[in-house]
């Protein structure tokens, strides 16, 4: 079975091939190419599942790396086309192909009858390919390529309904905001690679960079600068504040695309890359602190924004931002496993929520939750799957979201125990945000499913192609959590799955040394406390370990979370249980609500102080200066030259030189006019003058003698 890993590249290649085939021949196919897309994803999924199984049972497994020298880049450095298959890759492959597969099936019904149906499927496959390329890449340059292709596909799909200006704007906003982050990513990758020049001729290779970082061969400055810049890319791509602004607007795309973007492809790229580079970024306390702070801010303030939304998809979008905040924050507090685990479970339940939302929207032709209501009876399948997704998102005990989110909080707690303030921050803010999450999801659920139907269309359950993917994802939204729960065996579990040789149980943080070797570095978790046996056993050496071990279960804390959950749901029921309230309490909180409705003013700020100045003022200035000043200078040189030429001609040439020539001629004429008088024609006078001359000469000679 080991041979299966060798074919991991096929997982990426299949969607690419189907994308190309659909784009070229899709229109001639009986099902307009959708069948081909689904089939290729099915194959890719099978392969990914095989790889996942293989890496899981053999975990922790050594990474498999295969590469071709694709192009020389000059200076002896080589760009490799290569793949890196380890547990982390396998997790992502499984997640991406599963979600994408479901989305493909779902889209066949959802997008039925749309214009550009074929194009949609081609793009969907291409999107999947791009993400898989990023995931499989064994070097950062290839990852950048996948990353940018993901950005392009998101642009093309968000702006899928390009007849509307708002959709065009959303596409542009997504592409440009993420492209701005790419500045950081690209320069960061370059900075890291420049640190590798002396060590290898494949300076982008991820494993080599990570190894060099861990072994201290990379300068600290290089690591800090490089990783912070790369994190800028993650901020924009993974919707961290303040560059999250594109994400809610990206809801302009068709709902399956939203599901794909939010669950599997686009936004997970940033977190994935952080996880991929975790050994490197874990070398610097600064980098981790920055990451944690951005994550905390995002997970809390991003979540708050969902409170005031009436658009179902936007509620989900902001919840995604919040959940991504959890993942990023987890990276920042050493919760490598927790972050990837949350990424994994979140992918399933967020895809589920979006697809279920799509099913609702498909039925009632509106996104607005105040125009829904009473959908539970009409759409039972959508109803219960949506509820499962909501519970998972809210972290209801024993769902996947519960286990993964708690892992993050525990990671924060352990980090706090090691003496880092960011740890406590993640822990407490994370807990508060969980309450917020529960509340807004309950709000959405009550408004959508409870009470009377307020829509203008009689709701109806969607077809099998829509409901079956929902059910599959609902099952996964529960089941995936048990990969890393108190019920998990010591090995294999999710942690051993994603562990690598650099991140095994011996891995520690270099900067968290003796100073923080507090004896109480035991994860005193609130919800499901982990008292990591390995950590407890080895804390004597005074280091904080990357891997925390299998979590344990604390019944008393389970009660706290249930209480919190009940309060949030109860509050939501009180406000929204009987349909849309006269005055929505989330909008009745004065300036706080205003700030939320105006999205903290970030969008306005971006438009007013970045887009407009650059696009209109600065560009206008540049163009003006080019046309007036620089070109004016050139034209000025031209004019001066011309003036000088005219002057030369008029003064020097015409007056001085030609004047001299003419003057000679004129003076000759003048003199001859005077002198010709002598010529009298009188021969005798001539003779007289002649004789006089002779006499003068003779006398002169005589005198001279």
């Amino acid at each position: 079975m080991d041979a299966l890993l060798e074919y991991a590249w096929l997982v990426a290649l299949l969607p690419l091939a189907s994308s190309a085939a659909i784009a070229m021949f899709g229109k001639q196919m009986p099902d307009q190419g959708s069948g081909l897309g689904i089939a290729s994803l099915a194959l890719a999924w099978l392969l990914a599942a095989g790889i996942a199984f293989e890496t899981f049972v053999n975990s922790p497994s050594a990474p498999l790396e295969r590469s071709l020298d694709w192009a020389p880049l000059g200076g002896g450095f080589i760009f490799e086309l290569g793949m890196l298959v380890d547990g982390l890759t396998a997790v992502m492959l499984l997640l991406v192909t599963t979600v994408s597969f479901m989305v493909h099936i779902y889209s066949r019904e959802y997008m039925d009858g749309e214009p550009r149906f074929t194009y949609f499927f081609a793009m969907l496959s291409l999107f999947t390919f791009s993400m898989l390329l990023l995931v499989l890449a064994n070097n950062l340059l290839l990852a950048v390529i996948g990353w940018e292709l993901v950005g392009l596909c998101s642009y093309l799909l968000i702006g899928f309904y390009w007849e509307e200006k708002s959709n065009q704007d959303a596409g542009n906003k997504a592409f440009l905001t993420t492209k701005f982050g790419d500045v950081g990513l690209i320069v960061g990758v370059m900075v890291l690679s420049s640190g590798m020049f002396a060590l290898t001729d494949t300076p982008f290779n991820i494993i080599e960079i990570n190894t060099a970082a861990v072994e201290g061969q990379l300068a600290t400055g290089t690591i800090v600068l490089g990783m912070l810049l790369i994190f800028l890319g993650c901020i924009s791509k993974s919707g961290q504040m303040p560059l999250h602004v594109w994400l809610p607007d990206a809801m302009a795309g068709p709902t399956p695309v939203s599901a794909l973007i939010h669950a599997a492809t686009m936004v997970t790229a940033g977190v994935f890359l952080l996880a991929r580079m975790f050994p490197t970024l874990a070398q610097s306390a600064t980098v981790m602190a920055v990451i944690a702070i951005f994550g905390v801010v995002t997970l809390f303030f991003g979540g708050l924004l969902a409170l005031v939304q009436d658009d179902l998809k936007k509620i989900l979008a902001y919840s995604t931002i919040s959940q991504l905040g959890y993942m990023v924050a987890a990276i920042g507090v050493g919760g490598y496993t927790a972050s990837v685990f949350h990424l994994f479970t979140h992918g399933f339940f967020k895809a589920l929520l979006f697809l279920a939302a799509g099913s609702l929207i498909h039925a009632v032709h509106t996104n607005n939750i105040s125009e829904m209501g009473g959908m539970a009876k009409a759409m039972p399948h959508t109803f219960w799957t949506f509820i499962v997704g909501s519970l998972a998102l809210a972290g209801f005990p024993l769902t996947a979201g519960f286990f993964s989110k708690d892992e993050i909080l525990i990671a924060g707690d352990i980090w706090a125990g090691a003496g880092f303030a960011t740890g406590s921050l993640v822990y407490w803010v994370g807990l508060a945000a969980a309450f917020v999450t529960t509340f807004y999801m309950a709000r959405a659920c009550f408004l959508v499913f409870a009470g009377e139907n307020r829509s203008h269309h009689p709701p109806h359950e969607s077809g099998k192609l829509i409901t079956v993917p929902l059910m599959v994802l609902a099952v996964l939204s529960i089941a995936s959590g048990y990969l890393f729960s108190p019920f998990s065996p010591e090995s294999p579990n999710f942690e051993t799955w994603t562990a690598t040789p650099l991140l095994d149980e011996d891995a520690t943080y270099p900067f968290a040394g003796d100073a923080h070797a507090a004896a109480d570095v035991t994860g005193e978790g609130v919800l499901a406390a982990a008292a990591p046996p390995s950590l407890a056993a080895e804390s004597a050496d005074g280091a904080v370990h990357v891997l925390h071990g299998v979590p344990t279960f604390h019944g008393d804390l389970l009660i706290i979370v249930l209480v919190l959950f009940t309060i949030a749901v109860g509050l939501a029921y009180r406000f929204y249980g009987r349909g849309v309230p006269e005055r929505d309490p989330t909008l009745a909180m004065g300036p706080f609500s205003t700030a939320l409705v105006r999205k903290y003013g970030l969008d306005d700020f971006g438009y007013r102080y970045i887009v407009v100045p650059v696009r209109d003022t600065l560009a206008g200035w540049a163009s003006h200066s080019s046309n007036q000043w620089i070109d004016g200078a050139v034209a000025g040189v031209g004019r001066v030259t011309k003036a000088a030429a005219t002057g030369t001609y008029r003064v020097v040439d015409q007056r001085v030189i030609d004047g001299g020539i003419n003057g000679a001629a004129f003076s000759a004429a003048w003199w001859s006019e005077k002198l010709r008088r002598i010529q009298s024609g009188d021969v005798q006078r001539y003779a007289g003058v002649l004789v006089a001359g002779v006499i003068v000469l003779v006398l002169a000679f005589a005198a001279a003698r």
Partner: protein
Amino acid sequence: MDPNTAGWALVVALFLPLLGAGLLVLMPAAKDALIRRAAVVITAVSFAVVAAVTASFDFSRAGELQFTTDVAWITAIDARFSLGMDGISLPLFFLTSLLSLLCAIYTTKYLPAPGKPKAFLALMLLLQTGMAGTFVAFDLILFFIFFELTLVPMFFMIGMWGGPRRDYASVKFFLYTLFGSIFMLVAFLAIYFQTGAETWSITELSEMAPFGSGTFQTWAFLGVFLGFAIKVPVWPFHTWLPDAHTEAPTVGSVLLAGVLLKMGTYGFIRIALPILPEGAARFAPLIGVLAVIGIVYGSLCCLAQTDVKRLIAFSSVGHMGFVMLGIAAMNEAGIQAALFGNIAHGVITGLLFFLAGSLHERYHTREIAVIGGGMLKKLPVYGVVFTYVAIASLGLPGLAGFWGEFTAMWAAISPGLTLGADWGGLYLVLVLFAAIGTVLTAGYFLWLLQRINLGEPLERWKDEKLDDIQALEWVSWAPLLVLVLALGVFPRLLFGVQDAAVSNLVGFLGG
């Protein structure tokens, strides 16, 4: 053909177009269609020769000169007729020939007023010889002659077949570039007398370098710099470009962007750097700064344009900025990037100008606001192709534009020689700004696409019947469309060919 002995093949490939131009002149002007077909045949034959040369090129020794010819020419001044081709010349030579063929094909149907294909095509063939010669001449005098030879046909192409301001644009183009060339010629002379070796051979001079005092290197490089910088064009010498491009006929723009600008960067790489390495090292930070200003500034200017063709012209300023940034890096990766960017820009921007020309054929305007969107509805295939090329131009990975830009920035982050130690911080800032330039580039292209491609067509075009891409346009564009993808996916096509030659060249820099 044996690349060691078959110097004649290069001579034939080079002068066939000139011969063809002579043939065209002899043909009666009335036989319009015949002339156009003859031009296609001539360029096709010369392309076939170039293809044969390429096929028999010894890629394992791409660092050495092949297909060399070296005979005494003007003995009084020691000028020699010296031709040759290595991994750096080959792609540019090939591109020249390919673009000329495609332009000839395109001209069989599209030629702006006042027609006269005989004169137009003869000039184009003359231009082809000039352009191609620049890339294979290995004698400074010969190089200079080819370099200047391109001015005349291009001047007439703009001046006769151009837009409303053609007189202004053509004279400006001619004088501005000539102005730079004069300094370059003076610098060449200075180099000649400085060495005292009585040779104009580029290879011999490169091997002799560095010579002369620091002052000499500085001044000589400044002269060469002016000549090439205006041609590239480097900011702030760029202002002839938008005018020339906007007014030039489609084919003129394609060749101007596709090949003529490349002569400047090629000159930097082939002549300025290896012959005057110390001067180059001294100027490198300045070149880098100007390059990055060009990137950001050019992109900003694009945002403000209302004319599609002028916008594309300004985009060239930005893209050539990346090429210059690669040169400023003064290391192998930088030169590789510059050369890759050269070719990629030639292919992509050449295509963009073809597309802009076709846009004008259909809408009879190039004003963005007048076209007003909906092209994907009105001309779906054209719209898709336009999107494809625009995305390639904004540097998306997987398409040709990416490699030049990324590699240039990557090279500049650790510049060669001692630049890294002396100016490392500056270069890092330059790279950051260049990267921001890529965002602006994406910005103006997406905005352009939004304004002409997306949305519903304006009322005025609703009932107008506009043809989608015609068969002839497909023929003249398809090779470039394929190249854009091929170079993006297989960067080895260029990087591999250039690698050894670039390595040799950087050896002359002493880096």
